[in-house]
């Protein structure tokens, strides 16, 4: 009985993330590294919150203060990881050759991998404590609810894992677009709004879990999940009401996101230099070969 409950909780929490991981992260090694490092960064954020909790205990009689502090730390770490990913992507993609596309980072896949890292880290820290207890005897009841605490916790963890993925994707893609809109304030406002929506949804999601009635929490969280996922999908693909052209112009940049392959024909200055160097090499090698033969 307890083993069944344990397996049920395990699969509820990890199934969606596992599917995404199997589709993207395990097939490409770069994404694995990005996911691992994002997991590491998320754990740094949660350890930071715990240290603050240790330092200032009297504030935390209610849960709201811990939520605020953790929210702030997590979003700061997410922004820092965004900067890191941007730096990585630029260094690697700028210096990639035509024949070496395997070493490039596809920005959207990279943001998805980082989101998965955050999600998996979140779920590992938040859920394993109760998951291991679910395999043992006995049952804990959630307050104000007939569901067992283990099952409720696993449902919440599933939702939050997917939400983390969505939040990271929204933030990373929007903030990348943000830079290339110089004079267009209205569009900048719209982009800012999207990021603010994701932040507010994070805070709202963690506040919703404070509600005692688990039916209300779960319904609200699932609605939130659907809305945020729709937003994330809209932002990545942009196939809604003529916004496609705008989005495609943003993407087609010196550092392509990879949705359109029109940039593959262009050659950067660096590649031209490399070709010249190769030609020189061949000419020099031919001269050396001729000189050796003559000797």
């Amino acid at each position: 009985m307890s083993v069944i409950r344990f397996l049920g909780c395990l699969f509820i929490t990890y199934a969606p993330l596992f599917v995404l991981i199997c589709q993207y992260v395990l097939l490409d090694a770069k994404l694995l590294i990005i996911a691992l490092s994002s997991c590491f960064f998320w754990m740094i954020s949660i350890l930071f919150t715990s240290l603050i909790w240790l330092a200032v205990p009297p504030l935390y009689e209610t849960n709201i203060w811990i939520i605020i502090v953790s929210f702030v730390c997590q979003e700061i770490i997410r922004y820092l990881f965004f900067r890191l990913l941007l730096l990585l992507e630029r260094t690697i993609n700028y210096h990639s050759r035509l024949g070496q596309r395997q070493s490039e980072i596809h920005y959207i896949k990279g943001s998805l991998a980082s989101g998965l890292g955050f999600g998996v880290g979140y779920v590992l820290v938040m859920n394993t404590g109760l998951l291991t207890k679910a395999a043992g005897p006995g049952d804990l009841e959630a307050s104000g609810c007939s569901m067992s605490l283990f099952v409720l916790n696993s449902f919440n963890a599933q939702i939050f894992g997917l939400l983390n993925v969505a939040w990271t994707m929204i933030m990373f893609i929007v903030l990348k677009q943000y830079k290339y809109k110089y004079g267009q304030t209205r569009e900048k406002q719209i982009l800012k709004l999207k990021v603010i929506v994701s932040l507010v949804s994070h805070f709202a999601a963690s506040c919703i879990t404070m509600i005692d009635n688990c039916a209300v929490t779960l319904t609200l969280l699932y609605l939130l999940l659907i809305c945020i996922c729709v937003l994330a999908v809209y932002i990545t693909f942009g196939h809604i009401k003529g916004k496609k052209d705008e989005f495609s112009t943003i993407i087609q940049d010196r550092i392509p996101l990879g949705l359109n392959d029109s940039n593959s024909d262009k050659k950067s200055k660096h590649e031209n230099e490399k070709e010249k160097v190769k030609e020189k090499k061949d000419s020099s090698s031919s001269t050396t070969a001729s000189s050796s033969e003559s000797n």
Partner: protein
Amino acid sequence: MSSQNESEEKKKKTKKRTNKKQNHKQKNKTKDVEFNTRYEIQEGKREPGKEDLDYIVAVYTKQLRKVLIPVAVTMLLVVLVIRTAYKDKPEEGAFNDIMVYNESDEDSAGFRFGGALLNAVIVIAVILVVTLIMVCLYMKGFDWILVGWVIFSVFIILTFYGLLTWLEIFQYLNKSLDWISALIVILNFGVAGTITITWKGAKIINQIYLIIISVLFAAILSTLPEYTTWILLVLLAIYDLVVVLSPKGPLKMLVETAEKKGKPIPGLIYSSMVWFMSTLEKSKAKKKRKNKKKNEKKKTSSSSESNTTESDDLLQNNKLLNSNSSESEENLINEDDEIVKEESEENEKSKTKIKISKKKKKTTKKKKDDNSSALLDHSPKLGLGDFIFYSLLISKAAYQDYTTVFTCFVAILMGLSLTLFFLALLQKALPALPLSIFFGIIFFFITSNVLVPMNSLVFQDHVFL
């Protein structure tokens, strides 16, 4: 097209050999590490012969997964063994006869700390002495002692410690076992392990046995008293750093002696080296046909599937793997020394392990220098010592909570990937222990003491942060 590629390859190889010899000498003298910085590339100052960042990234990413998976598997196995069999055992003080200071709860914290420090310092001193002895033996040509040591120690570990853990697990599962079947099974297990590790064997089985050895070793080491383990880990990380990065260490002496002897295999009588040679010859022949997988008889190396494009590009990146060999040697030396006390069996076992790794690495290094083009030794080498100390750290976490286990797991893997990244960037021998142990210790203490209580408070109200 293929002929043109071959001609280009030959030209590149000839240039590479000359460049490598010159660069090798210069590097030994000046210690200048040149690598392509972002700014050099942008300004066009990058020289044509040097490796590009994208090559480094492509090779690094392919290698990383092959290293991470064995480490992850060992750590998870250790967690499994400890959570089932070792966790509820009373602390019997297995090392009390050996340690100078026996920890007990009656003493004050400062006294315990001092005693633990003394224990750890003695262990590391013994490690140093043993490494010097081994270096002297190797330099004077007494390889056969080391070979016999390896065989003996591997056999003893697999049979003795394997039997102990097996009995512990069966005690946990409440099953019975008769001495006849146990004897038969464990003898076969041990003999097969020694044969695969020290002689021929399938690559996967070799890796499995090495993982099993590290799991057994770490499970036994986890019974060390608490303060000694933490101080020992810290001191080992520092020792590893010092020995690998110092200009005059036993590592360099070993490498120099290996090069002085001038043989393609540095004077080793191990039959394992013969096997290695034969596989390499086969691989050379196969390369000409541009077809195959190259099997390496290394602890963490896995077969590198050679596609035509990959082989052309990755031939030029043998430097990445040269540097790793020394790193693993040093780690094995440390691991060797860790348990070494004067007359305990453990010492012998560890030494043999180190020797295995060292000699394997030397062969690969030599071969790279001679026939850099023929070898596709792309996987980085990681010593058994690294495995054992990472899993020791995880075992200490396993005694506490699963959350600490996962945080330390992530920290260790992150440290390992960072060290490999620096290795790919700097192309120099680097120690693998310090970064991951640094991260692991920090994460362990913060999670076990701070995060778990916070989580337990928060979960009572089913609140998610």
